[in-house]
């Protein structure tokens, strides 16, 4: 175990009394509470932390926050999670992490040979190379070579995710100086205020620097603000929380990574805010020169954070390379921490006197650039070049701090669809016009002077609260030492003789200047095209540090101004978010809860295997008895229905009560067949089309009284039918007087069927006369059964004599149990949906999703009789007529009897001409073992099928062709005498 040799003896926001042990790439180290994985590795002198995505170049830590472009880790064990920036992983006891790339190890990466063949993997390589046969063929090996992390093998076991919908008046993103002052001002006015910050502690950039506010250390000032915020009941503060999506109408999605709740892994907030204040700060940019990716090259601001906040030394002798003022205060802090600064390389001709004063004795090479870095797994020198003479000179160092200027963090602002504009003074894109109720403030708005940031925060906070209707409250502006205005001269790439093949514009995706140039040469010069072609600006870091350098490179090469090129579209998520955090509690059955009938528990107790029968309804599939196979069970249940007595739970069927003066008119236009001549107390099977002539649903509608109907629909389609009817009534015929009540769950039913059904029901205590004369087929009777009020429909989906006993759901279980008490001695058998399927296929009854596939119309299914000739109009009539007016071969419903009577085929299997490898001429819609015929039977949709009855069709399976005779689509009781008996 190594001790922390690169840790300073004092200073920093870490707790040296709390030692934390952790493991990185198999080696064990120590750090302190308050560390990130990155700072704890720097403390131990670890500089090689990654291998790059494409070329497997050695990489180190470059940033200090979510901007990190180089090092990503996979967390192991209970934390299992992939592709986390190394800089945002909080250190905790027992943490185990490994680099996502590098195989077999970082030091001896076999694939780093790719470095030598850079030219072989240019931009667009994936598109050009892996077109055939398809990407998935190559994906596993690419993934390994590319060093993308593996998804965790299993979901986290110790805890769960959660999500919350929330709202507030003012939502502030970022608790830096701007965010804190605006939150305080808004909160004091009484507005419901939420302050979200992605840091472990509030303070933003203040935490990394040594500024003073009100003549106090910034930490004291920050605490005074958060103490006041925490004392207010109208304030919610979410720390260690990342705002990663900004959607329409001020919906901001925030994931809290360390919620203070036991067993809670992460919590995602969907916050709807009346006003949003974006105080997300700014992100420092890298500079583009050869080998600008070598371990030891770091963002200047990151180095500042490491020495001040974490008290660790990322190097001993440093060179600073900058094109702006912000690197000078960093130099001061580095010297204070004991880092020797060899030189400041400033690409500008004249940094201000204020900067020269700050630098003191440090050598400043103005109008110079860094042309390249030297070293293998770590920087050991930089090659510096004068812009005037071009003479190179080598300066030994183990750390190169780069600062290419600052980009306001406008990601969320841009996600909100608000526009950006290029600012020449800052050489950056800054917020332009907000299209939602939001405003950027502080560095996010392009203001880098602390005093002004604090004043602006107060102003914007007050404005947001007052826009929500809260009165302004005075908040005084804290005092700060004045600082020189920020100044920058853009440097999108250095001009040097060094090859641009190793000058990276996107370090995470290994995109070089050469790649950008290639994209432009090949005609993909528009900025969105450059992004797709090179993958620059994509990936985990979304080009936070280098994206603008791509725009700059395109500008340089194409001679266009940056303002005219613009940026690519900013998309969510702003930072990597775990899928679990997005899903929240909506996993497995909680995503869409199941629906149960009153008989579910009884069915389970009776040994039912439960299925989903559509629309999340659970229904028994089959009730296997001791030792029975699936097929034996289904055969027994189907046979009981054909020969004796069975009952099934038909409760999930969609049911609608339809009444009103225009109810009959409505039913008549919804169904293809005539309903207006239906008599009270009887029902009719009907078919519904969509307006474009496709079958929507089928089912029985019973006339309960004058202008009063009960419509039943298929289980899965109940909601679709409801929408269809409501749409027609409310949008197309708003003047019609009809009232529709969905009563699917209000009524449940037990369907008693089989040749002995009448005999059985006559033994049940009831005032209903079940005799054939008094209760004919398709009739409805109301009465009591075993003391329970019931509506009994004589309808049949099995082809047998059948009575559907409907009762209010709360009495359904009582009815069901009573029927069993009485019926068991007679052999009453509960049957599941599998037996139902067999029975309906034997009879050739339709099933939506099987025979009705969205292309078939009633003629195709042999049901021309259901298309009323008498009615002038019904929904879908014209569409079917128009389609049928053109002669074209149609797929028609037929039966199939395989030559081998024991042969069952997969439902959906294609039929091809003579079984040849040709376009199919249809498919098998259902194939079951028929208990009535003691052989397999199948239904199929087959081109011109009806004219081919008696001929042979061929089912083409993998490695086999199954011949079958084409028959009528009915294998049992073709005249339906049994169900009408």
């Amino acid at each position, binding site marked *: 175990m190594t001790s922390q040799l690169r840790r300073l003896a004092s200073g920093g926001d870490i707790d040296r009394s709390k030692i934390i042990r952790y493991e990185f790439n198999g080696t064990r180290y120590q750090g302190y509470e308050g560390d990130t994985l990155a700072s704890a590795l720097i403390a131990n002198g670890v500089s090689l932390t990654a291998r790059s995505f494409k070329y497997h170049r050695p990489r180190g830590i470059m940033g200090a926050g979510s901007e990190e472009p180089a090092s990503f880790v996979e967390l192991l064990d209970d934390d299992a999670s992939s592709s986390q920036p190394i800089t945002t992983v909080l250190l905790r006891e027992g943490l185990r992490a490994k680099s996502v790339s590098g195989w077999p190890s970082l030091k001896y990466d076999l694939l780093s040979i790719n470095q030598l063949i850079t030219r072989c993997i240019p931009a667009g390589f994936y598109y050009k190379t892996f077109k055939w046969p398809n990407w998935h063929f190559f994906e596993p090996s690419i993934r390994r070579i590319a060093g993308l992390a593996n998804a965790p093998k299993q979901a986290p076991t110790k805890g769960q995710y959660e999500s919350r*919908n929330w709202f507030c008046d003012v939502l502030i993103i970022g608790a830096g100086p701007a965010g804190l002052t605006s939150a305080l001002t808004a909160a004091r006015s009484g507005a419901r205020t939420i302050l979200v910050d992605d840091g472990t502690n509030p303070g933003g950039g203040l935490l990394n620097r040594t500024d003073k506010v009100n003549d106090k250390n910034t930490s004291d000032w920050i605490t005074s603000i958060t103490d006041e915020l925490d004392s207010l009941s109208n304030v919610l503060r979410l720390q260690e929380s990342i705002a990663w999506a900004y*959607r*329409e*109408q001020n*919906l901001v999605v925030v994931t809290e990574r360390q919620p203070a709740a036991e067993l809670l892994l992460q919590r995602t907030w*969907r916050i*709807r805010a009346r006003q949003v204040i974006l105080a997300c700060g700014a992100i420092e940019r890298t500079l583009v020169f050869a080998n600008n990716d070598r371990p030891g090259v770091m963002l200047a601001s990151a180095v500042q954070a490491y020495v001040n906040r974490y008290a660790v030394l990322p190097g001993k002798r440093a060179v600073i390379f900058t094109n702006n003022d912000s690197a000078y205060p960093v130099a001061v802090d580095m010297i204070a921490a004991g880092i020797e600064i060899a030189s400041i390389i400033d690409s500008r001709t004249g940094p201000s006197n204020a900067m020269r004063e700050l630098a003191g004795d440090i050598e400043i090479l103005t109008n110079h650039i860094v042309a390249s870095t030297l070293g293998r797994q770590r920087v050991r020198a930089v090659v510096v070049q004068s812009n005037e003479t071009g003479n190179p000179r080598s300066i030994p160092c183990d750390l190169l701090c780069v600062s290419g200027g600052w980009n306001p963090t406008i990601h969320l602002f841009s996600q909100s*669809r608000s526009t950006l504009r290029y600012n020449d003074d800052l050489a950056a894109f800054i917020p332009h016009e907000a*299209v939602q109720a939001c405003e950027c403030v502080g560095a996010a708005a392009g203001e880098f002077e602390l005093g002004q940031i604090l004043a602006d925060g107060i102003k914007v906070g007050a404005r947001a609260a007052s826009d929500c209707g809260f009165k302004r409250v005075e908040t005084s502006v804290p005092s700060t030492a004045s600082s020189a205005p920020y100044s920058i001269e853009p440097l999108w790439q250095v001009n040097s003789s060094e090859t641009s093949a190793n000058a990276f514009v996107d370090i995470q995706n290994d995109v070089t200047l050469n790649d950008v140039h290639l994209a432009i040469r090949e005609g993909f010069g528009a900025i969105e095209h450059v992004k797709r072609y090179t993958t620059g600006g994509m990936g985990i870091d979304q080009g936070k540090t280098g994206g603008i350098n791509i725009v700059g490179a395109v500008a340089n090469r194409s001679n266009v101004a940056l303002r005219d090129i613009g940026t690519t579209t900013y998309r969510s998520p702003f930072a990597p978010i775990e899928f679990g955090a997005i899903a929240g509690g909506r996993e497995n059955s909680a995503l869409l809860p199941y629906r149960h009938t009153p008989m579910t528990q009884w069915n389970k107790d009776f040994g039912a295997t439960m299925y989903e029968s559509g629309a999340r309804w659970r229904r028994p599939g089959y009730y296997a008895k001791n030792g029975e196979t699936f097929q034996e069970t289904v055969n027994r249940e189907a046979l009981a229905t054909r020969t004796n007595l069975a009952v099934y739970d038909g409760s999930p069927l969609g049911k609608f009560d339809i009444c009103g003066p225009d109810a009959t008119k409505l039913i008549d236009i919804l169904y293809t067949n005539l309903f207006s001549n239906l008599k009270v107390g009887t029902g009719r099977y009907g078919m519904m089309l969509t*307006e*474009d002539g496709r079958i929507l649903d089928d089912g029985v509608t019973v006339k309960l009284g004058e202008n009063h109907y009960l419509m039943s629909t298929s289980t899965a389609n109940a*909601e679709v039918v*409801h*929408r269809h009817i*409501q*749409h*027609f009534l*409310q*949008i*197309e*015929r*708003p*003047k019609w007087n009809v009232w529709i009540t969905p009563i699917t769950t209000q009524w449940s039913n037990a369907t008693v069927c089989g040749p002995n059904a009448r005999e059985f029901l006559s033994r049940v205590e009831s005032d209903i006369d079940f005799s054939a004369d008094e209760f004919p087929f398709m009739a409805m009777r109301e009465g009591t059964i075993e003391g329970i009020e019931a509506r009994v429909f004589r309808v049949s989906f099995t082809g047998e004599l059948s009575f559907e006993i409907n009762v209010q759901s709360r009495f359904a279980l009582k009815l069901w149990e009573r029927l069993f008490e009485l019926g068991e001695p007679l052999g009453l058998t509960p049957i599941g949906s599998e037996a139902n399927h067999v029975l309906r296929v034997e009879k050739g009854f339709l099933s939506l999703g099987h025979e009705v596939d969205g292309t078939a119309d009633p003629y195709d299914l042999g049901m021309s009789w259901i298309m009323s000739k008498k009615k*002038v*109009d019904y929904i879908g*009539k*014209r*569409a079917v007529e*128009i389609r049928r*007016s053109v002669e074209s071969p149609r797929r028609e419903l037929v039966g199939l009897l395989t030559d081998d009577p024991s042969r069952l085929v997969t439902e959906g299997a294609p039929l091809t001409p003579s079984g040849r490898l040709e376009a199919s001429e249809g498919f098998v819609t259902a194939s079951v073992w028929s208990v009535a015929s003691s052989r397999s039977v199948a239904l199929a949709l087959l081109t011109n099928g009806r004219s081919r009855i008696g001929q042979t069709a061929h089912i083409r399976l993998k490695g086999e062709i199954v011949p079958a005779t084409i028959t009528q689509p009915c294998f049992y009781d073709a005249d339906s005498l049994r169900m009408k008996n």
Partner: protein
Amino acid sequence: MLVIHCPFCGPRNESEFINGGPAREKRADNPNAYADADWIDYLIEAPNPLGPVTEKWWHVMGCSMWFSIQRNTLTHEILDYANKTHD
């Protein structure tokens, strides 16, 4: 996620609604009076502008009411709740 003002229930999240496509002229009382081509147009031609469109929504997780709003398809801005329901 949009916030949609149901004329009956007030502002609710989009997830409670089902989009019913752009509003069109009412279905004819007698479709037989249309030439084939005109009826086909009625079936398949739907306005799909980049900008404001009047569209139908169904409050399926609420009151079951169908109503129209005017939404800018480019910005997602809901411009008009007037003529909320269909008389």
